[in-house]
């Protein structure tokens, strides 16, 4: 049976979602990580997950991106070849192939997503080689092309990211992630550790590149301004549960849940 087709209202939308999550839950012992999480994500859509620290948003992202194992629920994904799979029940090898070939993950700390003692160019090229690229010149050309796109001087191709600034490292991590043209990208506080001056450029860059690659994106952030600029849709989490979801501007301009109202009214104005 077509699991994805059953998961959205008929007649409203001819295209099926890329990802359909149902009843996802994670406990750490008796402590709740998240529960009853359900949503659809369509091609090209950016979904923001907001909430304060401890609300379960990173737990949810980690469950979705297969970094930790959920206890219950379905993660239904439509593969590039059209096949529909429940990611949680796939054999390990298939999971790894999808992670390598169709999904991408941008860590909050670029040091977790990069190999710091391998050149910038190799950090990008490595992902291509994992996908089967073998032609050295082609790989190197692609790598320098991507460095330029994330505004890193191509002359730095052979330098180690260890010696890059935090902002450059984050841009390199984004290039490394997007080079394989992933269909689904997870980002955990992508502008988290960066100076405000660097954040703005990076946000614009992420938005442009995600558009260009046509990827769907799930972004965790505690910064509502970042969410407003990047996300089409928002999910607000509190104590492990989704308390409100909707179009980003609806949630931020006309919040209904008491917790969302508190979040929105707590933002400092500059």
């Amino acid at each position: 049976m077509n699991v994805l087709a059953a998961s959205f209202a008929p007649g409203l939308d001819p295209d099926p979602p890329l990802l359909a999550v149902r009843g996802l839950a994670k406990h750490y012992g008796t402590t709740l990580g998240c529960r009853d999480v359900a949503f659809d994500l369509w091609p090209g859509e950016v979904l923001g997950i907001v909430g304060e620290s401890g609300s379960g948003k990173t737990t949810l992202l980690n469950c979705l991106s297969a970094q930790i194992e959920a206890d219950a629920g379905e993660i239904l994904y439509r593969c590039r070849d059209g096949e529909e799979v429940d990611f949680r029940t796939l054999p390990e090898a298939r999971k790894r192939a999808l992670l390598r070939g169709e999904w991408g993950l941008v860590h909050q700390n670029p040091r977790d997503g990069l190999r710091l003692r391998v050149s910038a160019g190799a950090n990008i090229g490595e992902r291509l080689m994992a996908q089967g690229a073998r032609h050295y010149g082609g790989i190197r050309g692609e790598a320098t092309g991507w460095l330029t796109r994330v505004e890193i001087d191509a002359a730095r191709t052979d330098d180690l990211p260890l010696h890059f600034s935090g902002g450059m490292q984050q841009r390199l991590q984004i290039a490394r992630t997007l080079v394989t043209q992933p269909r689904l990208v997870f980002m955990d506080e992508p502008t988290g550790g960066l100076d405000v001056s660097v954040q703005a450029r990076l946000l614009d860059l992420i938005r442009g590149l995600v558009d260009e690659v046509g990827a769907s994106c799930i972004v965790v952030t505690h910064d509502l301004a970042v969410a407003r600029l990047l996300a089409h849709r928002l999910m607000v989490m509190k104590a492990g549960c989704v308390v409100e979801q909707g179009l980003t501007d609806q949630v931020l301009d006309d919040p209904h849940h008491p917790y969302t109202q508190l979040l929105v009214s707590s933002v400092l104005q500059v």
Partner: protein
Amino acid sequence: MTVMLSAQNLAKTYTLHTQGGTRIPVFRGLSLEVSAGECVVLHGPSGAGKSTLLRAMYANILPDEGEIRVRHAGRMVDILAANSRTVLQVRRQTLGYVSQFLRVIPRVPTLDVVAEPLIRRGEDRAAAREAAAALLARLNIPPRLWSLAPATFSGGEQQRVNIARGLIAPTPILLLDEPTASLDAANRAVVTSLISEAKAAGAAIVGIFHDDETRAAVTDRLFDLSTAKAA
């Protein structure tokens, strides 16, 4: 005349949970229809719910009751009941909205800020920038500012950049929230003629205008919220 937007039986009450659950009723049983080629101006004292109604028509604020149907791609779509993707599609193609304030990514050049809605529609980047330049020139934003980000511009300049961004990709329905609030007479006149041109091209327009001159120039019909609402 073709009805482009039909709001029926709208009711909205804000509940402020962070302030002791205070309830602020805005309107009830409110209905309004707007046809192609006409400009309806929302009227009423401050607090009457003009902005709430206008933003509801953009599905930015969700009323508690009622429906707002807009003519999108040849059929009427209730934007309050439609899913997020449909609402975004309706906004991109059918519903234009010019707010009072410019809200953009910092450090993006003005020309790109204005060209973006066209590019998102699939227009060629160079053509979109050309159209942006023409509109900015018409709104008296000097070319030396085009490559700068608008954050440091004056209030009036920012508002004109916002208008350019809001009007560059023509839509069959146009919602205007005080687009002339901080403009001088010459620039108000430019905006007035842009609105008249959109109207002549068949756009259905709903607006809030506080300056009498602009209002007089563009209004076909006043919609008075103080008599229409029964909250």
